[in-house]
């Protein structure tokens, strides 16, 4: 598997650390409801098709990114920096 890092280009997946669903990017603050944490931490869709996950270029530039891929074809459709999402 090859992952396109927005900063480094397409690299071997062994350079990356996999975290999980992009849901992890939407952390409820301490003002949130405890019940919302179930969604944030545990409840996950398991789509046959397009999926968006958070990966870390740990053996590379240290960028976190959202990688879009297809769970049926294994095609990697693209990636974007997590930091960019926040700034936008």
């Amino acid at each position, binding site marked *: *598997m*090859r992952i396109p890092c927005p900063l480094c280009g397409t690299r071997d997946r062994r350079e990356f650390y996999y975290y999980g669903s992009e849901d992890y990017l939407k*952390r409820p603050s301490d003002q949130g409801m*405890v019940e919302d944490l179930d969604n944030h*931490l545990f409840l996950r869709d398991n789509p046959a098709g397009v999926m968006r996950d958070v990966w870390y270029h740990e053996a590379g530039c240290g960028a976190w990114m959202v990688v879009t891929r297809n769970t049926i074809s*294994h095609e990697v459709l693209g990636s974007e920096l997590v930091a960019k999402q*926040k*700034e936008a």
Partner: protein
Amino acid sequence: MRIAGKGLIDRTKPVSFKFDGKAYQGFKGDTVASALLANGVKLVGRSFKYHRPRGVLTAGSEEPNAMIEVIGASNQTPNVRATVQEIFEGLNTRSQNRWPSLRFDVMAVNDMVSPFLSAGFYYKTFMWPRAFWEAIYEPIIRRAAGLGSLSGKHDEGHYEKAFAFCDVLVIGAGPSGLMAALEAARAGADVILCEEDRLLGGRLLADDAHLDGKPAGEWVAAVEAELKALPNVRIMPRTTVTGAYDGGQFSAVERVGLHKGPRPDLPRECFWRITAARTVLAAGALERSIAFPMNDRPGIMLASAVQTYLNKFGVVPGKRVTLFANNDGARAVARQLMAAGVTVAAILDSRTDASAVEDCPVYLGAQVTDTKGRLGLRAITGTHVGGEFALETDLLAVSGGWNPTLHITCHLNGRPRWEASLAAFVPLADAVPNLQAAGACNGVFDTLGCLREGQAAARAALRGLNIAAADAALPTAEGLPYVIAPLWQVAGKGRAWLDFANDVTTKDVKLAAQEGYASVEHMKRYTTQGMAPDQGKNSNVGALAVLADTTGRGIPETGTTTFRPPFIPTSIAAMGAGGRGNGFAPQRFLTSDQASRDRAAPMIEAGLWYRPSYFPKPGETSWLDSCNREIGYVRGAVGVCDVSTLGKIDIQGKDAGRFLDLVYTNTFSTLSVGRVRYGLMLRADGYVLDDGTSARLGQDHYLMTTTTAAAGLVMRHLDFVHQSECADWDVRFISVTESWAQFAVAGPMARALLNGYLDQPLGDFPFMATGAVTVGGVQARLFRISFSGEEGYEIAVPTRYGEALFRDLVARAETMGGGPYGMEALNVLRIEKGLITHAEIDGRATAFDIGAAKMLSAKKDCIGKLAASRPGLIGPERAQMVGLKPLSAEKITSGAHLFIPGADLNRVNSQGHISSVGYSPMFDRDLALGFLVNGRAWHGETVRVVDRLRGIDVLAEVCDPVFHDKDGEKLRA
């Protein structure tokens, strides 16, 4: 028998090698198979189940019969295909699966009782009584099972792995592959050309084809020379592509040194991972046999193999050859044999409408119904349109048609399509993204068609890469159509083999269907068809056809099993290259490493680091003696310990304090410059991630320390929090763990030591202070922090001064009745003080559990704060951290469970566990930290500590985790 003037071997270079202890001679360029055949050796192996005598069937990696052991100095490689292994001076090989000898094999008795050993024999026979299975059946079956044997020693051979990248990967260097590589290379694309054989050319050489009116070898040599001269081409002979993976990645295994004698400078094999933007699969096709009665005798070979041995090796393994075929291909073989002066007894063509005009007898509508010759073929009998025939023959060349080598197109779940006109499966166009099959592996079997397909596939690849195609002209070549009339099996009395390696016959397949295993996947498992080292390359399609016949469903409806990587048997040593022993695992050494080793300190691994366990002294009989003495240094004088392994992260920016407030449960933005604070970090789910101290070095400058174990984890976490929550803040950070060497100086005399050593004595330097100091003119950082409970300092210098500083500090400590201390002492010191490590914060502990709930600031948010308040993470039902003091001097262990005295010792009644234990000289007994349900309410009570693995059952008092200096008077002295 060698044929003069034929073959691509070097007859000026004789090579001697051994097979079953006997020396044979071949020539440079021979395989073990070709050299044995040239020496008249027909019997090379025994079959798996019936121990039938077997000879060479093929001339390639798909060989099911001629599997041998190659015996090296330190390794013994089983199941090596004799058809692939090139000979070299001193090569030592052995046949396998026979005892006591290849010609006389006791286990051949299985062949006599074969009617009882049909498909499903094991399932049916070894069912009962149940108690017999482990004691009787399994040992017997295990002894009989398996083909080759291993040396039983570690394989000390050298293997490598490597990565490669290209625009166009061409798999196979026959006519299609060479044309594709040439086209892509001339256009300027980066090309990798992988060829399983030692020579480029594929069937062009084996068939002795002609291109542009000249022997094809000349064209091959010209193309090879042109490709070799181009800087954008890498030719990889002896390299088999074994698998296709996601993202244009392919695995390949290269035989680097296997064809040479032991060479210290060469790996035996190299396992490649090749990433290709586009791929042309030009893997060719494999000829298949026909299942006629007694078709497995030595001397019965595939026609294409006979042709290969003639044209590539100058060997004809018989004096009177017969050919049995259902297609035109065998005709060329017969003509070439006759041209080489070999007697062809007859061509047996199963078709009735084929031409009968050849320079030898041709029987039409012919079928072989029996064969004779136990250790080598002598005669065959059969029928034809004119009646019956009986022929004396010592070599029968069989062709049942061709199967495209499409295996790799199935590796990403693609299933091939049945093409009735070819009586074969062909690959689907888009089975592997960006891969195009060309030539024989795509069902195009004539030379001209292969050249065209190769060129077209390369042009398609170039279009995809936006590279303009070069106009390589195609050579002229034969374009004969492939005409075949399917013939899968011949009825008759004897057994007709499908899978030679696993001894599966047509009868077994029919039996499987009768017994309800009519699906192809069930049949495969019931009969073990296709599960031998050749993975059914020679037999799957035939077996499928027999199954389709039996069930009356037709081949497309019956379907096919799929192919998975690897394409050929691949040694685990090659795939795991670099992984033996420590392999390529990095080792991280402290600046004090040599100084510690000079003192004979045994090293203990801490992640990738190596840290001194203890520093033995003469007269000490165990590590515990040393540990107790070193504890005494810290408690009574001064000890020195290298603590550089702790993660150090330099954090700067106007929002640095705000950032720390977000990642730590407690507040750091309010910390004064020149002060240090202990902090606790939570994961997103509210459990403790890590702990450590952070120092404020300047207004916008912090230095965070992490535990040794979690340094990488914390860095990743900080990156995540920063990028996902506050990428727009003014904060940047970087790991400086390797930039600083840091040493703990701890004990009641620590200050005195420093005062005598620093360029300036310390002024007011209270607990949790930090400041810049100089040592011998070198800028250093000093922190007053403690992991032992004594007055403690940590002094940090740039790494290059680390060793000198350590040696100085230790020398000074020794003049004051102290010295260096190692990990064992450090561990006891921190347990006595109730300080945690990752033995406590093991991923299951919350801040509440470790008694740090009040560290969660109510005034601000932080990562994990809301999650830490979830029901179930706080309260009396939680296992809370406690101290445990055994009532007696008996040993206790970490991992032991805690029970209420009187309760039954079972899993449900376990009230917690012990996380850390150390022998405390101060208390003259083991002290422990552990987690006990509602533990803080149990202080003063007694629990039972049970470790059944080590036979420990001890009563212990539950207490506060801080055993020593609870009020911190020594700490703040």
